[in-house]
């Protein structure tokens, strides 16, 4: 695969709260290659949304750095960041909050084109082209965002990202608010565009089925850390971390007579008080004495899979 479009290197983020220091992200590193999709999964409180905001430079990291096409964006001033912003776009869960309700859809999509210095006629034709690429009628550009359904609004957000000639799109729960039938439409669209434009995707979701469908590689987060990362098929078929295994077992599938695997006990601990040793030891079905004291490292396992566990499968 070609060179990394995005490099996340040792990124950490803490928040000061009245109750102490909250560690949202701790030493997170990964690359996303050109045309590659990295899925990021984990439950609430795992740090996946903080990660999206840091990668998009909507929130500074307290440690580490982000490189976009070889440039360290963590040190860039906002003015120098602006041209790079176009190459990194975002699609959020609720597109209505990220689409200006007072602007026509055509103008929303044309915004990055105007910033790039394109003339009016060229902008209009590009907008019509992008609308048809994402499966909307070219004349829908005249209407306002509220006139569209949830799935159509996600298509508009995707069209805007494409108009900006993005290299990478950060999708933060981009299909989570959609009905199953509409989610399938949007997932297929993203997969098509990736092939057609060589787009890279960072696809964050709590929906493991959607992540498996769209991702080449997958990172599993638990309490701010990557506990396992590797190829999608390997992660889903031979998970090495007990947390990944438990997470997958918990997903209800639409097939009859599924064996009932006892659910993981307890809930994710507070990022204010992360457990000692391995952060997962309080819920791990395979916990041993060493796990309570010694913090495991993220180590290579097999076939490019890396896992943070003393006793991986």
């Amino acid at each position: 695969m070609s060179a990394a479009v995005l490099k996340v290197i040792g990124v950490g983020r803490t928040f000061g709260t009245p109750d102490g220091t909250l560690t949202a992200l701790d030493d997170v590193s990964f690359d996303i290659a050109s045309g590659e999709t990295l899925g990021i999964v984990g439950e609430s409180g795992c740090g996946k949304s903080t990660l999206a905001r840091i990668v998009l430079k909507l929130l500074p990291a307290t440690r580490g750095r982000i490189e976009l096409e070889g440039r360290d964006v963590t040190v860039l001033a906002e003015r120098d960041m602006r041209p790079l912003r176009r190459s990194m776009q975002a699609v959020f869960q609720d597109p209505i909050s990220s689409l200006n309700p007072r602007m026509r859809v055509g103008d929303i999509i044309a915004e990055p084109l105007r910033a790039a210095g394109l003339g009016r006629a060229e902008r209009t034709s590009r907008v019509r082209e992008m609308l048809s690429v994402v499966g909307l009628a070219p004349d829908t550009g005249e209407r306002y965002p509220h006139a569209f359904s949830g799935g159509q609004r996600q298509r508009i957000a995707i069209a805007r990202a494409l108009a900006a000639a993005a290299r990478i799109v950060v999708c933060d729960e981009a299909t989570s608010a959609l009905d199953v039938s509409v989610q399938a439409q949007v997932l297929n669209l993203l997969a098509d565009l990736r092939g057609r434009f060589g787009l890279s995707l960072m696809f964050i979701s709590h929906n493991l089925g959607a992540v498996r469908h769209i991702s080449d590689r997958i990172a599993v987060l638990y309490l701010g850390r990557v506990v396992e990362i590797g190829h999608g098929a390997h992660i889903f078929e031979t998970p090495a971390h007990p947390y990944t295994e438990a997470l997958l077992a918990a997903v209800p599938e639409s097939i009859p007579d599924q064996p009932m695997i006892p659910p993981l006990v307890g809930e994710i601990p507070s990022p204010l008080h992360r457990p000692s040793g391995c952060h997962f030891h309080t819920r791990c079905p395979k916990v041993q004495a060493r796990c309570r004291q010694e913090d495991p490292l993220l180590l290579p396992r097999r076939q490019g899979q890396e896992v943070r566990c003393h006793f991986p499968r």
Partner: protein
Amino acid sequence: MPGSPLLNIDGLSVCFRGEEESREVLRQVSFCIAPGEIMGVVGESGSGKSVAALSVMGLLGATGSITQGSIHFEGIGDLTRLDPGALRAVRGGKIGMIFQEPMTSLNPLMTVGMQVTEVLQEHLGVARTAARREAIDWFDKVGIPNPDLRYHDYPHSLSGGMRQRVMIAMAMVCLPKLLIADEPTTALDVTVQAQILELMKDLRQRHGTAILLITHDMGVIARMADRVAVMYAGEVAEVAQCRDLLTAPAHPYTRSLLAAMPSVKRRLDRLPIIPGQMPSPGAMPTGCRFHPRCPMIIEKCRELPAPMQSLGGGRIARCWRAAAAMESPS
């Protein structure tokens, strides 16, 4: 279904009054629930699944009204004919309820323990001290750790999973015959969802409580339901035993819905999609309401609404091509 049903919804139609016109959001909805049965109702937004639940509870609000049909509850009669006071006694007594977001149904200014105690005092007339003891006992039964300490917590200091457990305790204290659960795990993480689903199954086992489980998630249906009603555009598309529905869906909509759900077990190059979107109440298509999106359409689907077809074995489907759908490979 053997024996007489606990709840029998028969030909239920519901309208909501808008500013200019009135819109029918449920049309001729019928299904029943046997005592102790878990009946799943599945559908996408706009299918009418939540309106069906609200109708049973008599919570349609000022703008909604039942225009046709009946809702018979064993030992009580037609719920649609009860006066508001009598219905309130049924609700929280013989019928318990839990919703997607417990925060909106819990009182934020009262400890969770007091809220459960209050239900016991009001509905069952249990004395305060005994009610308190029983509330703590129920917290323990629904898997709340340190129940005597948690008794004094306010809803906001609990996690989403713990709040849902409190709601379940509150719904269960009167040992209802029927628990209506509307998307009870949709806001929860998947590992916590698995715990709550297990808890609900366990409560059904121990107390014989029937559950009307409303969800958009076919996976939740597969794990929980004995029988299933699939809803589309305000109508029941299909009713079947859960196993039959999953292995040989009789309505093309059910088939498409199952196929469109991405699985964690296998990856497809492309997800089979359902083109277009669900019609809204003001703009229902002629003929079968699913026909503009249906992959198995034939000429008469465009003009003639499909009647409910009986397919044997308690299966029914509102589709001209149900028999063909069941036989075609999935």
